[in-house]
């Protein structure tokens, strides 16, 4: 996976499903195609659901980083 520099960042640790996805989606809507959003997510249900929903919306997860109890995702707006 190529190193991408995030244009925006959103910390969704402690935010439950499906609000974490809704917030990700709204953030992506504000952004330009090709820009990268950095998202912090809790492990467990959020990590199961949010990446999948992001893909269904047509965007691309370009990087996943394990930070222990949480994960950092980089999502490229398509």
């Amino acid at each position, binding site marked *: *996976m190529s190193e991408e520099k995030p244009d925006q960042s959103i910390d969704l640790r402690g935010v439950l499903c499906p609000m974490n996805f809704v917030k990700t989606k709204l953030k992506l809507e504000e952004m330009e195609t090709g820009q990268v959003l950095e998202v912090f997510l809790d*492990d467990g249900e959020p*990590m*199961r659901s949010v*990446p*999948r929903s992001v*893909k269904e919306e047509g965007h691309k*997860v370009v*990087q*996943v980083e394990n930070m222990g109890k949480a994960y950092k995702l980089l999502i490229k707006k398509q």
Partner: protein
Amino acid sequence: MTEQTVTPERVDIQKLKSGGFIKQTQKDLFTVRLRMPGGRITPEKMAKVAEVAKKYSRMGFCHLSFRQSIELIGVHIDDFDKVAKELATAGVKVASCGPRVRVPTACGGCEYNPNGLMETQHKALEVDEKLFGTPCHHKFKTSFSGCPIDCARTMENDLGFQGAVEPQWDEPLCTGCTLCAKACMEGAIVPDKDGKPIFDPGKCIFCADCIRACPTNSWRIKRQGWIVRVGGKHGRHPRQAEEVARFLPDEKVIPFIEKTLQWYKDNGRPRERIGTTIDRVGLYRFITEVAGPVLQS
């Protein structure tokens, strides 16, 4: 006696049951069960059902049956013709009960449910159109679930079809992001030291969550179709259905049901559900005489 009673001359109860009219505790009142394959109904039909219920239900309510249909409660026997005719003006049909193929049930289907793997609603409509009412030794219930969550309870039906996808992994596209392992709730995917998936097919239940999660389409569909289960029922003596086929192609669903009905007719006894027939003659007979031949046809 001032009240009119239901006499054998006035009405044949068995004939009524085949027409979807079910006798109630109350004298001369019947439940009218509607034919709603997959539980789907348009607002126009719903409005007509409401209008007819308001006019003819002498108890003033409807009931949602356990097999996804609306039942009009407390319809007087003298109103049967009018009820059927008025419902028919909006294309609403009356279902049936008794020893025959019942209206299929189905989940919402992959048309709008993101978990869906196979289209259940169209299949339920097709089965209803082609096989509804076929006489059998006992009731014969079919159901369609779009994915392994199995909302339509294929384990509890005489013949149940559940959507399934077998995944396949292509290494060159994989970036080792581990999202597939996160997505898999069955523990069938574990990441190795580089984040690449180690897949245990024995644990896979064919839900396709790995495919949905994979950002690079490294996980793809290998096979897609129906898992078929036979012999399930609830009621006084529940019995879990047994899996008899995997990844049955969509176009073989109707032939599978037809062959099953023929086998049931030949091997079953009167008032015996197919699960009991299978317990008596052996599941291997069903697999070799029905499932195998249909899969290989």
